């Protein structure tokens, strides 16, 4: 039934309308771009963490793989930046496929192994002996194809794609099968769910979203270094935003990112000392009183969160 998608689609339309209109009133395009970036990453992480329970601390690995995959396609193969973004997404999926065996691990072991994998990728990319391909530690320069507006709307497209994916998972049998896997793999397989296949698909979709985001970010920023696109801050920010908003819904990660990323920009950049204090307190409060995120307040009150 299409009708069950209506609430999720409503949220997506609202976000798109805001992001299409805002540039006409608000001139800080860089802030809007980064907001979209984290909204998309939050939804991407939601796919794997919210629906299957795997917490990928190395999520930034896909982001970096996307940025470099696109950059290599653009600089060496002379592909147009738009298709470069898609190739960035595919590069992240390829890394995801290599890392599928990690899904056999669970809990902290998975988180640590994934973190290590992302760092390994960072050291490979930053290796000076690969200078001809990745430019090693000297960074990538895409200024010849720089186009702020085109990359802005490409990022918006990536965000819409990520939100639609989560909407599909929130309302489909596939999403339900993932939730079943998250809870009890044996019971899921006894309902006929192919556990290995379903969680691998979720993993690759999640990687694809991070790869597309990384690629769009690389295009928008034009100049970046391995330390920029493999920075652990990307993983940590995304995870905190998702946990703050609430997992398993379309709206939860959006709310978390909108609140926390705005706060980071308005307090964090001007007065970082207060920001750290405030963020720290907020996380303590979150863990103590709202372990399931802001969306859980509504859910406890029996309100449907799209």
């Amino acid at each position, binding site marked *: 039934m299409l009708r069950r998608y209506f609430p999720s689609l409503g949220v997506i339309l609202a976000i798109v309308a805001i992001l299409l209109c805002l540039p006409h009133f608000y001139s800080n395009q860089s802030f809007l771009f980064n907001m979209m970036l984290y909204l998309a990453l939050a939804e991407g992480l939601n796919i794997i963490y919210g629906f299957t329970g795997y917490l990928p601390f190395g999520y930034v690995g896909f982001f970096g793989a996307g940025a470099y995959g696109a950059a290599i396609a653009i600089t060496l193969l002379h592909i147009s930046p738009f298709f470069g973004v898609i190739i960035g997404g595919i590069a992240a999926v390829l890394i995801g496929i290599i890392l599928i065996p990690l899904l056999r691990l669970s809990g902290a072991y998975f988180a640590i192994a994934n973190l290590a994998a992302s760092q390994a990728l960072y050291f490979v990319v930053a290796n000076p002996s690969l200078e001809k391909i990745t430019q090693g530690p000297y960074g990538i320069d895409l200024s010849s194809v720089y186009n702020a507006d085109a990359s802005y709307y490409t990022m918006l497209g990536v965000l819409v794609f990520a939100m639609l994916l989560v909407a599909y998972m929130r309302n489909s*049998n596939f999403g*339900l099968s993932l939730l079943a896997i998250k809870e009890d793999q044996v019971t899921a397989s006894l*309902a006929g769910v192919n556990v290995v296949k379903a969680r691998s698909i979720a993993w690759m979709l999640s990687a694809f979203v991070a790869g597309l985001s990384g690629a769009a970010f690389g295009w928008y920023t034009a100049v970046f270094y391995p330390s920029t696109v493999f920075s652990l801050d990307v993983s940590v920010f995304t995870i905190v935003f998702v946990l703050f908003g609430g997992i398993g819904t379309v709206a939860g990660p959006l709310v978390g990112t909108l609140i926390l990323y705005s706060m980071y920009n308005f307090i964090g950049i001007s007065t970082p000392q207060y920001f750290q204090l405030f963020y720290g307190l907020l996380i303590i409060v979150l863990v103590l009183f709202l372990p399931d995120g802001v969306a859980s307040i509504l859910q406890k009150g029996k309100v449907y969160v799209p």
Partner: protein
Amino acid sequence: MGGLLDIEVLESGYGSTQVLWGSSLSVALNQSVVLLGVNGAGKTTLLKTIVGLLGAWKGRIVFDGKDITSLKPNLRIAGGIGYMSELGILPNLTVEENLELGGYFRAEKDNRKRAEEMFEYFPDLREYRKKMGGSLSGGQRKMLGVAKTLMSSPKLVIMDEPSSGLSPKFVKKVIEVLRLLHEHEKLSMLIAEQNVSFLDFAEKIYILDKGQVTFGGDVEQLKGNDTIRETYFGISH
């Protein structure tokens, strides 16, 4: 043998511990079969081997004319086996979601229709459809487990101790519902139990003891067997 399910000299176990020592049994189409055995007899091991959660060390499992001995569990389920474990449901999904998951292979429209049929058999579930599985009572959970298993309209339903953890009143209710389902839907069933009340509607009974099938026959034959009567009914001459 040519039944719906034929188990031929099956051996299996956990790690290096062998539990099943050459068990054979068969379930015919539309037949209700009860597998009786005390704790530790190997009932759960046998059922888990049939659905593929445990590998068969030796022997063959033939279902619906096909050898499924080395098939993955999800493919056995897709092939028409419904399995209800002792726990049976997912506590963090709603009653409706549990049922939807039960009908994972079917179209949404068919699922809704089937869920309505299930609500006819289990009126309590209709009332609690939006509630989490974990918030139901033990008896209601068991009913949800049965309904979830039947959502896919399986050719054969396998149940592991549907009476475990239930009060005698609820055991009676479960038996009543299973009897109704067997009559109305011509269900083929293989139920592992240690509660002899289930023998009431069993058309065939097997007894599993120390990993081997020691008896196969109907209720009358069972009651005529002195040793068995003593073990399970506590009556001796």
